[in-house]
């Protein structure tokens, strides 16, 4: 995890620097679009789409850096993959519960597909899709909380 923290920190720094360079460069060499805006408003705007997009790419990487850094601190020790003296077995712990199979994601995808199709074609399809999606979400969330799995 130490390596991951560094990788994301470097990415964040790179995107941050790129955003600054991009914003400055877009002011030095404005595009025809920026100039046409400047004719109307009297001010040359920076190219906002790239500036915002690259800045938030930096924040995206910083966000994951921060989370991994806090997680590393709460684990309190290096994970086996960060140690040169660790064996293969050390990296083979209980990682959690994973459903062996489930129909609910398929049903949910079908419901959501109908909902979005409805937005494009006619809202009545969305109305049909909504209950399918709602039932699928509930079914998925509670799949291992009822029947044989009730506890």
């Amino acid at each position, binding site marked *: 995890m130490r390596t991951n923290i560094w990788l994301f920190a470097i990415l964040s720094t790179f995107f941050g620097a790129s955003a600054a360079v991009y914003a400055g460069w877009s002011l030095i060499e404005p595009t025809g679009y920026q100039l046409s805006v400047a004719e109307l408003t009297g001010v040359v705007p920076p190219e906002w*789409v790239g500036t915002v997009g690259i800045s938030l790419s930096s924040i995206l990487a910083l*966000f994951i850096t921060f989370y991994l850094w806090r997680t590393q601190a709460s*684990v309190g020790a290096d994970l086996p993959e960060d140690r040169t003296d*660790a064996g293969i077995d050390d990296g083979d712990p209980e990682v959690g519960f994973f459903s062996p199979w489930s129909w609910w994601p398929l049903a949910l995808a079908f419901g959501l597909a109908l909902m979005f199709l409805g937005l494009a074609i006619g809202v009545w399809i969305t109305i049909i899709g909504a209950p399918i999606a709602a039932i699928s*979400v509930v079914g998925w969330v509670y799949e291992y909380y009822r029947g044989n799995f009730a506890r």
Partner: protein
Amino acid sequence: MSPAPGSHGISRPNPTQVGTIVWLGSEVMFFAGLFAVFFTLRANSPQLWAEQSSKLDITYAAINTTILVLSSVTAQMGVRAAERLQGRRTGGLFNLAKWGTVEWFFLSFAMGATFVVGQIYEYGNLVTEHIGFQSDSFGSVFYFATGFHGLHVTGGLIAFLLVIGRIFAVKRFTHKEAVSAIAISYYWHFVDVVWIALFFAVYVLPLLS
């Protein structure tokens, strides 16, 4: 093969929580698109922006923002309770110190719902001021950005209910329920931070310029 010293008994990062964070990273980029639209259109028509922004009720929006920010605090109190594996309250209804995850999440739900209702009421007021979804570029991006945020809050409200339902469904609150509670709190804090950025861009920037 003998294990390396000190490598056993380490609590590995939970895959559900790491996955939630990575997904929230992709949500950052979703909102990046909305912010890019907002700033581009704002740069195109500063006069329209100044005129339409003056119709926004910043005091009202600030109160609504405060409610959402405080709901993050109550959600975090719910996480604290989840970390000590306390699903339900052990004291009286008004004994906050003994509240469990369920009570704190119900309170967070109520505050989040208040925010959404407040936002709808604000939309209603703005429509009477002739700011509609298709009236001009300000109206489009205002409803587009704050509306998508409102949908995220609504999704969070549903998620709160699902997690509360899980806690009600089990006899004993275990690590598994705590993980659900922590994952939804990540999402809630994220949506809260996005709103602070949106509030700054939509409501505060016009006052500064």
